[in-house]
């Protein structure tokens, strides 16, 4: 039954992609066909995946299509069901949000059709990856997802920037796909089959297992955006239309995480603790560098893209802890780490897509993508501002919203490192936890900047001053996601109990203590070690607020609020240019962590011909400068050197053929 819903989701997504081809002339018909079907796909995905997750059962199906010797194997177990729910949730909101958002593309130079067709195929690709139970189907789904995402990023191809962003994305995702293919190759070599069930049953020696693990780490890491493989992310996300960015950042990165979990925990099995250490290290680096780079960005969507790098880093910290505990024989703690990572997947899918949808509304209404030109939007678009604020609080890991719960669980997993007999691990894991704490605190600073500069204060440009609230669809979509952020923040016990179904697939014990004390209390290890009563926190804040309000009520009647001008130090009216800018806000952090970024700064003091003065700040990316550009130069240089053999001289070519023939004869004769 759950699998039928999942298949229905795939079919609906295919229909949403292909049916509009029949009526390519009318934008109205395209929208009327594509988006409701997309919503249906999302809804079926939620139901199918949700049923599999809640019941904790696995459903298999073998379709007699595919390669002659390999039928298509499909599997819906709690793990794929969970990710199916994530894809479904964001797809559903996209279907509600999209029709109003694509209106601006109807007036643009592109036809609407490619956008809807490839969005549909994109969802199909992601669902197929999740349902696949053999390497062949997996790779087909993976490529469908990658290529349609490329075509979505390059949708507005009149801008040179978008074309190059899309090309980088395509290049990197294909290198990733190649590595994943090699990883499956190693597994298939030992299992003698492409079927996941046979792969999982095969036992690999440690050397080959580690090789396969590294291939998977880099291959899936390229798609997930781990540092230093993240460089496509901040280019591709701003280029894509906002609802596609939400899908890419919210769920496509999660599909990569799913691939990594499926590969490492399920197919490889028996992880070695050193793998966990590698994952923990890369995760910590990604988390801290992601947030530090995000702090310096002024393009809203680029900033959010760097935050995706950060959050993927946090997810990998959880996975790394889980692998370490699993490799040292602590299955209950390994389950805790895995659940923390999965919970963060859910949370990131919710708040990041919420933030991208919000960014899309801002972009559409104010036509500004630069933070330095926004300001005061909360007065013009209160609903979007409220939802965006929820997203900001959630991503900054503040209680009682959802981002806090998963980081708290990760902290709890890290604090159990004293059970490890290896002292070096015992000392390194708390340091990783401290990095996580630094990441969370910097993320809060970054989102104070984003919300403060974008929504509060005075408008910094005329377009920002003229922006107005969006239509009903986008508003509903954002409110839905904001409510889910609160819900999953307040009901962590229930959520963890469901996620335990996934952990039981790999670690039979699960975490019996976590939910033993009723729905109010989350006690990951035991109630003596740590407890968090999220509903009570919300209730407590509300109660304290109510009491304060009631207590001050008589005074409110006696001394009503008087509205006056802001205090201007007696120097005349304030204007928008006197406010702190986003650049100014992060200046202290820029100064403290100076070597982290390649920075070029230009000042020009005010002079007679240039009374305003000028200040220009460019923040690059070391990964780009120190890794990718040298590789690019090396490739081009060696290609140029190799080109020498193409002299254009026919005698030379004949000589090549002759010597090749001689060489081959020699090889054959030996």
């Amino acid at each position: 039954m759950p699998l039928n819903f999942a298949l229905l989701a795939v079919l609906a997504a295919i229909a949403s992609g292909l049916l509009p081809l029949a009526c390519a002339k009318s934008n109205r018909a395209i929208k009327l066909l594509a988006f409701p079907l997309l919503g249906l796909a999302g809804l079926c995905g939620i139901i199918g995946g949700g049923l599999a997750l809640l019941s904790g059962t696995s459903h298999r199906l073998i379709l007699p299509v595919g390669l002659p010797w390999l039928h298509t194997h499909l599997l819906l177990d709690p793990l794929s069901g969970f990710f199916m729910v994530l894809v479904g949730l964001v797809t559903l909101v996209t279907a509600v949000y999209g029709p109003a958002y694509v209106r601006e593309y109807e007036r643009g130079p592109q036809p609407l059709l490619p956008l809807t067709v490839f969005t549909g195929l994109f969802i199909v690709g992601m669902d197929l990856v999740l349902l696949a139970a053999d390497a062949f189907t997996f790779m087909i789904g993976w490529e469908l997802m990658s290529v349609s995402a490329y075509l979505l990023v390059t949708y507005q191809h009149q801008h040179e920037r978008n074309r190059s962003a899309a090309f980088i994305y395509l290049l990197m995702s294909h290198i990733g796909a190649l590595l994943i293919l090699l990883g499956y190759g190693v597994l298939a070599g030992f299992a003698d089959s492409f079927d996941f069930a046979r792969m999982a049953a095969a036992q690999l020696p440690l050397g080959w297992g580690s090789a396969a693990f590294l291939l998977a780490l880099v291959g899936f890491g390229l798609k997930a955006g781990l540092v230093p493989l993240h460089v496509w992310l901040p280019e591709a996300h701003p280029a894509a239309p906002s609802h596609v960015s939400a899908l890419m950042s919210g769920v496509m990165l999660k599909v990569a995480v799913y691939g990594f979990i499926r590969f490492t925990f399920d197919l490889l099995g028996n992880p070695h603790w050193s793998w966990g250490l590698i994952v923990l290290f890369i995760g910590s680096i990604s988390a801290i560098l992601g947030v530090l780079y995000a702090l310096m960005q002024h393009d809203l969507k680029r900033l959010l893209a760097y935050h995706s790098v950060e959050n993927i880093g946090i997810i990998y910290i959880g996975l790394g802890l889980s692998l370490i505990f699993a490799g040292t024989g602590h299955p209950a703690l390994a389950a805790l780490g895995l659940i923390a990572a999965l919970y963060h997947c859910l949370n990131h899918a919710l708040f990041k897509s919420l933030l991208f949808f919000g960014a899309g509304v801002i972009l559409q209404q104010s036509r500004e993508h630069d933070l330095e030109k926004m300001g005061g939007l909360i007065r013009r678009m209160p609903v979007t501002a409220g939802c965006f604020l929820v997203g900001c609080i959630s991503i900054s890991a503040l209680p009682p919203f959802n981002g806090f719960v998963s980081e708290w669980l990760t902290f709890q997993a890290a604090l159990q490192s004293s059970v490890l007999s290896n002292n070096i691990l015992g000392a390194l894991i708390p340091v990783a936890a401290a990095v996580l704490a630094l990441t969370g605190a910097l993320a809060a600073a970054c989102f104070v900047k984003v919300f403060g500069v974008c929504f509060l204060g005075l408008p910094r440009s005329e377009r920002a001053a003229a922006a107005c609230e969006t239509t009903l669809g986008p508003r509903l979509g954002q409110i839905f996601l904001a409510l889910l952020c609160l819900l999953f923040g307040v009901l962590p016990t229930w959520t963890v109990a469901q996620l335990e179904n996934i952990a039981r697939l790999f670690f039979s014990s699960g975490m019996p203590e976590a939910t033993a004390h009723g729905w109010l209390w989350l006690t990951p290890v035991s109630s003596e070690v740590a407890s968090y009563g999220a509903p009570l926190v919300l209730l407590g804040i509300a109660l304290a607020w109510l009491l304060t309000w009631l207590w001050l009520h008589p005074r409110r009647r006696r001394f009503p609020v008087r509205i006056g001008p802001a205090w201007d130090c007696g120097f005349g009216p304030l204007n928008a240019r006197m406010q702190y800018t986003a650049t100014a806000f992060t200046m202290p952090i820029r100064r403290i962590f100076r070597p982290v970024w390649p920075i070029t700064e230009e000042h020009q003091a005010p002079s007679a011909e240039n009374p305003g003065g000028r200040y220009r700040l460019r923040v690059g990316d070391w990964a780009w400068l120190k890794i990718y550009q040298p590789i690019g130069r090396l490739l081009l240089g060696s290609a140029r050197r190799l080109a020498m053999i193409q002299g254009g001289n026919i005698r030379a070519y004949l000589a090549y053929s002759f010597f090749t023939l001689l060489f081959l004869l020699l090889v054959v004769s030996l």
Partner: protein
Amino acid sequence: MNGWLLAIVQTGLLIAAAPFLAGWVKWVKCRLQSRQGPPPWQPYRDLHRLFGKEVVVAAVASPIFRSAPYLIFSVTALACSVVPLVAIGLPTTAIADVIVLVGFFALGRFFLALAGMDIGTSFGGMGASREMTIASLAEPAMLLGVFTLAMTVHSTNLASMISYLLENPFQLYPSFVFAAMGMVLVAVAETGRIPIDNPATHLELTMVHEAMILEYSGRHLALMEWAAMLKLMIYSVLLVNLFCPWGLVVDYTPPALLQGLLVVTVKVLLLGTILAFAETALAKMRLFRVPQYLALAFILCLLGILSHVILEVN
């Protein structure tokens, strides 16, 4: 039921006593500087005066500006209910462990910084930027200190941490010494005292907390000020009860409770006196020296973890 009642009384006591601690520190400081100084109960008069004044709100203020004082005060008050003041094992302490407590402060700070940026004056943005920078360095140091304690006592619940220390025979853990030093440094930074921030100044070059609440007046300002005093109180109680837990009561009989209250009062006032001495002896630090100060706190807490792993794990 008894526990819940006691928890509510204890929370109320903490909230009510917070202005006295702030006044006490000020009074001792004035005495040390050979000034007469306002009496320790002066903050109560100040709060009373502010509550009885008209509120002026800037025309451009958004709902965030008007709700922030209530939210910040509520969150800090909730944080008070989590901290064991006189007795341990109260039901409210299970709501949140010490990581959640740090999260409460972060939530309050988030809205404080947003409120500072709401009006669009340079002071607000400046204060918000500085506060978030300092906090982003102080928070990890704080958590690392907490982790050091948590790894020794195998818990992050404040009640379990303290009862572990009370039940086991006294031992001088080297990790505790480092963590205590680190957390004292962090507490000074987080509560905005000299040498990080000066609560008595309104000089634009130096102010952090005051810059953010510059636009507030009347009862809004009173709530903001009170929340800041609560924060000082919570940090003081936390420090004395974590590192010197003797005197906390486990059985809830009136004489024991009274004795516990007396002990904790003496401990907190003593800590306040030490703070006043430190504030008199030290000068405020330049803003860009603060990272070095907090890096020291971080390194101390890290040393705490390392010495725990190397020396204390067997």
